[in-house]
């Protein structure tokens, strides 16, 4: 039986892909993961499993990813370079492949300063672009860093993140190009609230021919409240939330905040669906997995294509 990446199949078929996020718990209970994951069943193609996001200690992304697989979902294993050196990272890539995980998202990771272990040493032995190249070389050449041959190459659909809203803007596209050259098969972007800036960025991405070389999934996060919008604008690194959106959230009564948040999100997804070079959406409903199905439904993304999880 050969495991496959559902995300890869969907994208290769030319269908508009949908991914979401499942954050592992701050505890050892597998039921928490399975319950969250059940909410996503049938609503998305593949599910990102975050790796100690915001540098807070949580159940390992590999373990949670295997739990997702056990109930027939397709995990995207997020892997950050903050906590492990090149020996541990390469070992985990092999382990993930052996356990049937077929997607990986290579990230630098939030700095340890932001989490609940600010006294930890940040490893950063390699960076996210070097990690991409490492996975690609392991998969395509069967070789690890330094050139030693593997007895069996891992099988991974390789992803990277891109933040169109960070500075300097012109260099953002060069860096995306580097990520694709290093090995990224797909890209998931930072949450998009500023669609104008995103369009500008996409134009530059298309000009460089990058949409021909890689699938780009636009990231969205439904707002729960005007407070959340303001918090993201002011306190979350690399976020761009325009004032109009904050005003729009402020303009509705408290009981309608979530509804409005979902509405904004659906409108963004609609724009993304018609944007040239966008192959899908990545819905990051933080601790609000119920919203994913609703957004997918309202944005006309359901039903999801049926793809056999394993094939002979």
């Amino acid at each position: 039986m050969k495991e496959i990446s559902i995300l890869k199949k969907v994208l290769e078929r030319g269908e508009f892909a949908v991914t979401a996020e499942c954050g592992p718990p701050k505890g050892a209970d597998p039921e928490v993961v399975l319950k969250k994951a059940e909410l996503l069943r049938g609503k998305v193609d593949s599910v990102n499993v975050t790796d100690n996001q915001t540098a807070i200690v949580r159940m390992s992304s590999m373990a949670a990813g295997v739990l997702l697989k056990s109930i027939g979902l397709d995990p995207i294993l997020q892997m950050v370079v903050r906590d492990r050196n090149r020996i541990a990272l390469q070992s985990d890539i092999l382990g993930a492949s052996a356990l049937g995980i077929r997607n990986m998202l290579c990230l630098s990771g939030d700095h340890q300063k932001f989490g609940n272990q600010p006294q930890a040493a940040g490893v950063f032995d390699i960076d996210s672009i070097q990690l991409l190249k490492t996975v690609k070389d392991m998969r395509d050449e069967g070789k690890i860093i330094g050139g030693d041959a593997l007895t069996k190459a891992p099988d991974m659909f390789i992803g990277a993140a891109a933040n169109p809203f960070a500075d300097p803007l012109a260099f953002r596209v060069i860096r995306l190009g580097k990520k694709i050259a290093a090995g990224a098969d797909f890209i998931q972007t930072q949450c998009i609230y500023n669609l104008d800036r995103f369009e500008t960025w996409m134009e530059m991405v298309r000009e460089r021919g990058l949409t021909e070389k890689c699938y780009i999934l636009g990231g969205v996060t439904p707002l729960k409240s005007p407070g959340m919008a303001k918090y993201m604008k002011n306190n979350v690194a690399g976020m761009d939330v325009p004032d109009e959106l904050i005003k729009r959230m402020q303009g509705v009564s408290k009981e309608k905040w979530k509804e409005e948040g979902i509405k904004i999100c659906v409108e963004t997804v609609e724009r993304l669906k018609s944007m040239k070079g966008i192959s899908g959406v990545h819905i990051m409903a933080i601790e609000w997995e119920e919203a994913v199905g609703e957004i997918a439904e309202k944005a006309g993304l359901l039903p999801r294509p049926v793809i056999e999880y394993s094939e002979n």
Partner: protein
Amino acid sequence: MITAEQKPMDEIRQMIAPYKKILAVGCGSCVAECAAGGEKETGALASALRMACKMAGDDKIIHEKTLDRQCVKDFIIQLDDIIKDYDAVLSLGCGAGVQAVAEMFNEIPVIPALNTEFLGETREQGLWVENCLGCGDCMLFYFGGVCPLARCSKQLLNGPCGGSKDGKCEVNPDVPCAWQNIIDRLSNYNALDRLEIIYPPKDWSKKYGSGPRKIIREDQKK
């Protein structure tokens, strides 16, 4: 140079508590430049300790002596004749100075009065900044004279990350984004093409590969 800052008074007093006769040893090099352990600071610390002890009814004897360089044996030997009069040395050298003194005088405790911080520069009066890790394999040519290993919070050789905003680092808005600096400098002399290179993983063996490092120069030996 190597930068350092004085430890809190309470911590120093706790460490010297068991000893009666203490020699505070300053250093006239890097730690003098960063106003942590030069002749002036050594005198000030010794006076402050004498005062504090006196107020507490503790009859410690604290003398001071500043060497031109506390990490060079040829200077440390100046302590040869006087050290026997003391039960402890309170060193205002950097970590290298403390250890060089300890290496030479096996019988006597050497107590650090400073926290050694980093390899850096004096940017302006009262401002010292870190800019070198001592990695043993300098790559500054590629990065416009700005070291991403020492100055990027995530040590990215292929930066900047998604947290660079308005030229500042996400980890601390007081910290300039090293990658913004690199891009600005490279664009000033038309070398932006270096940014397209995918730099391979750093060879850390030059720093960590065989334990503590040493330099041996036969041509310099007597």
